[in-house]
């Protein structure tokens, strides 16, 4: 099957309220993760945090093409996907601080936030860990004829995991309604994807399974959304899985403790010129969907919302020790 690199923009235009919603979500993700980094650096957060900063167009672009009952699996870098799927920043922040009011009651932390009611099947601490889960969710949708599809987000590091091959092969022969979205942010920890991933453009692998593979500019909300909408429509029709590779970049390190000795400052600056939020802000004002002062007011409102989330988290209790041995079995 031919590899498309130019998605058909006009079929799935993002505009009006949906574009305003996209900007709101992207700003929420950015400000949430900046605040999480600050909390970690201030010694107020345990473990670590993996910022999604720079990659917001991918999660939001795909998610705005979904129905509420569609399933999503995420990665260790999961805050953005949870927010974009409608997650509550208060409960997320409380989970980051290990509080009883967090999504997991403090049992999961940053890498294990799920919102099962919203069909967000969790961040995942295992690279490639979501691939089987998303494919299985697609199998439930097919067996129970719900019409839902599943989206599996994964990084370029997971292109090197065996489960991707097994899951793709199975989804292809069973024609499961699943979209595999590779967030190629150029690095798996310190490993550059142009070194660690054989064969060049990962979307080319799709041809080996007889499924579509599309590569888009992952810093362009509109390109991501249009391509995702096409491939999701295909999955919903019953035509099976596909690959969407979004070329993107993480502005910060792998996690909060990254020494960042493996990439040049100039490279980061080049990518920052492509900041997906600045690009959307420009488009939204240019198209007359929002005025600049409205965008500024929105940003202020979200900043306050994130501060409220931090306040909520800090004022929430630690989990009670009697919760230690609960939730192991149903």
């Amino acid at each position, binding site marked *: 099957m031919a590899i498309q690199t130019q998605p058909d923009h006009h079929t799935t235009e993002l505009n009006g309220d949906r574009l305003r919603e996209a900007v709101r979500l992207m700003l929420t993700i950015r400000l949430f993760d900046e605040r999480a980094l600050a909390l970690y650096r201030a010694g107020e957060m345990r473990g670590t945090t993996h910022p999604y900063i720079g990659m917001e167009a991918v999660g939001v672009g795909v998610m705005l093409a979904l129905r509420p009952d569609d399933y999503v699996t995420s990665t260790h870098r999961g805050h953005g996907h949870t927010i974009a799927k409608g997650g509550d920043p208060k409960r997320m922040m409380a989970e980051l601080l290990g509080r009883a009011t967090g*999504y997991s009651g403090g049992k999961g932390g940053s890498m294990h936030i799920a919102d099962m009611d919203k069909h967000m099947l969790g961040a995942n601490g295992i690279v490639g860990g979501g691939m*089987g889960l998303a494919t*299985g969710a697609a*199998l439930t949708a097919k067996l129970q004829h719900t019409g839902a599809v599943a989206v599996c987000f994964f990084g370029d590091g997971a292109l090197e995991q065996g489960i991707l091959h*097994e899951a793709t092969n199975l989804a292809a022969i069973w024609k499961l309604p699943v979209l595999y979205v590779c967030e190629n942010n150029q690095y798996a920890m310190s490993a550059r994807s142009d070194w660690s991933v054989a064969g060049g453009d990962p979307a080319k692998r799709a041809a080996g399974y007889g499924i579509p593979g599309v590569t888009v500019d992952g810093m362009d909300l509109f390109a991501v959304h249009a391509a995702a909408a096409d491939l999701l429509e295909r999955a919903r029709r019953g035509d099976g899985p596909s690959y969407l590779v979004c070329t993107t970049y993480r502005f910060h390190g792998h996690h909060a403790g990254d020494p960042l000795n493996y990439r040049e400052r100039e490279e980061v600056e080049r990518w920052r010129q492509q900041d997906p939020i600045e690009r959307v802000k420009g488009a939204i004002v240019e198209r007359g969907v929002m005025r600049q002062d409205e965008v500024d007011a929105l940003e202020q409102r979200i900043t306050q919302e994130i501060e409220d989330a931090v306040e909520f988290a800090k004022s929430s209790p630690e989990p009670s020790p009697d919760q230690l041995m609960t939730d192991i079995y149903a």
Partner: protein
Amino acid sequence: MAVAEAPSATTESSVRVITYAEALNEALREEMRRDPAVFVMGEDVAGWGGGGVFGVTKGLVEEFGAERIRDTPISEEAIAAVATGAAATGSRPVAEIMYVDFIGLAMEPIVNQAAKLRYMFGGKAKVPLVIRAQEGAGRGNAAQHSQSLEAWFCHIPGLKVVTPSTPADAKGLLKSAIRDDNPVIFLEHKVLYFSKGPVPEGDVTVPLGVADIKRPGRDVTVVGIHTMVGKAITAAEQLAAEGIELEVIDPRTLVPLDLDTIVESVKKTGRLIVSHEAYTRGGYGAEIITSVIDAAFDYLDAPPLRVCARNVPVPYSAALEQAALPQVDDLVAAARALVNKER
């Protein structure tokens, strides 16, 4: 062999003698009729010889169709991972790993996803998943097709582990496993597939976490897993002639473990043997012994013994395979040693 205790009543006339494999087949068929969310996936579960390399899924595809009896490619990690995702979203998959030896390929989704989703998500997820596999030696399948690996799964919080030894238990436990809202590793034994025993017809379940005293006795408690239950009963019959009475207990489920039944027995006998085909080192028998020591140290009249497999890959030759596995004679000798130590 005794009929499993059945909490839900059935009539006497409905008990027939069938094989362990047929009993499992019946459990699958009944549960799939009862609940449309139940489906089966695995290698050769539909196409091979009418259903499954040991016939456990025989004929199911004819009744339920290829959508619910799903042949998979040879992709163990995907089988376990996809079944986990299906279970977390409202399906009740029964996934088959053809030989437990292949499950190394599927450990990631079992150990890090299925077992932990519920806890990591603060109780918001449930994973009603059954992974069936068969284990054990005795058929000349050599080192990569004969292991007993139940201890791997007992180590992981969040999993349940089931090891039926009789046809009636196989049916009743599989039905309970399918109805359980947790991931259950359901380990069958390849030699036991051909064994026959009385099995109640219809909806008779055996609860998880309840051991069964397969033979009562006053002198030595023997806790056996899979084939070692039958071997212990044979050993007991031999020893009875010498006036030594073994009490043979089948825990039936290793997690959760019915420790009370074992401890009560040891309080009576003062002597304990654990026996399994799994390697002695790091085997679940050691865990059972430690648990009994914790609970009933003062009641023990002699150090507990392990009659388990030698710490060697399972060999091919019949002579070597037999030497690697615990045998009836080993149980007889161990029981005599325990009793004589006391006398």
